């Protein structure tokens, strides 16, 4: 596609429910990132996928968070048993290869946990 696509753009859920956020990276990009941005805060790194290598999960805040990337393309970020503090904008980015530092971001998913 022309850019990084994320869905849904907005998600409202109840505390305790599971949510899935989807990211479609730019075609041909091998690296994929998930970041989280809370109101007035910087981007918090969550997880990084590069090709077929094991993902770097060092930024995941708890074991309620997980992500997978199927076929080296689409990625899904799953948050189980959501909490109010999970409310944030979840941003996905991709880059051409693992040695290209320039990231292309999607518009994000605004997650609101009530």
């Amino acid at each position: 596609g022309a850019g990084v696509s994320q869905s849904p753009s907005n998600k409202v859920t109840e505390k305790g429910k599971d949510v899935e956020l989807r990211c479609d990276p730019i075609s041909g990009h091998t690296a994929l990132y998930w970041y989280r941005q809370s109101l007035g805060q910087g981007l918090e790194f969550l997880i990084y996928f590069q090709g077929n290598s094991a993902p770097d999960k060092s930024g995941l805040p708890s074991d309620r968070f997980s992500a997978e990337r199927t076929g080296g393309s689409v990625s899904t970020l799953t948050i189980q048993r959501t909490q109010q503090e999970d409310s944030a904008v979840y941003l996905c980015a991709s880059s051409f290869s693992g040695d290209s530092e320039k990231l292309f971001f999607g518009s994000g998913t605004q997650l609101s946990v009530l």
Partner: protein
Amino acid sequence: SQKIEQNSEALNIQEGKTATLTCNYTNYSPAYLQWYRQDPGRGPVFLLLIRENEKEKRKERLKVTFDTTLKQSLFHITASQPADSATYLCAPGKGGSYIPTFGRGTSLIVHP
């Protein structure tokens, strides 16, 4: 621990003036530093990358400097326009690591 500091207060300037934004970092030796622009409701958009062996980089009305001694990068927008109003994020990166760490960003408001 690593720390990236950007002015938290919004920078208000008049159209036509030069805007200068600051990014300071501590406990960190980045091999490169990126600047991104973020508009409300959108993801960041890459603007410029400068490497540790480069002192200055230019692109159209944008100029970035990188002083590894002062541990600081300055981002300049000359002849600023209201359309330049946005939040600007700096993101230093370590050599061999392709996971940039982002500052909180500085909001720039250019008044007509």
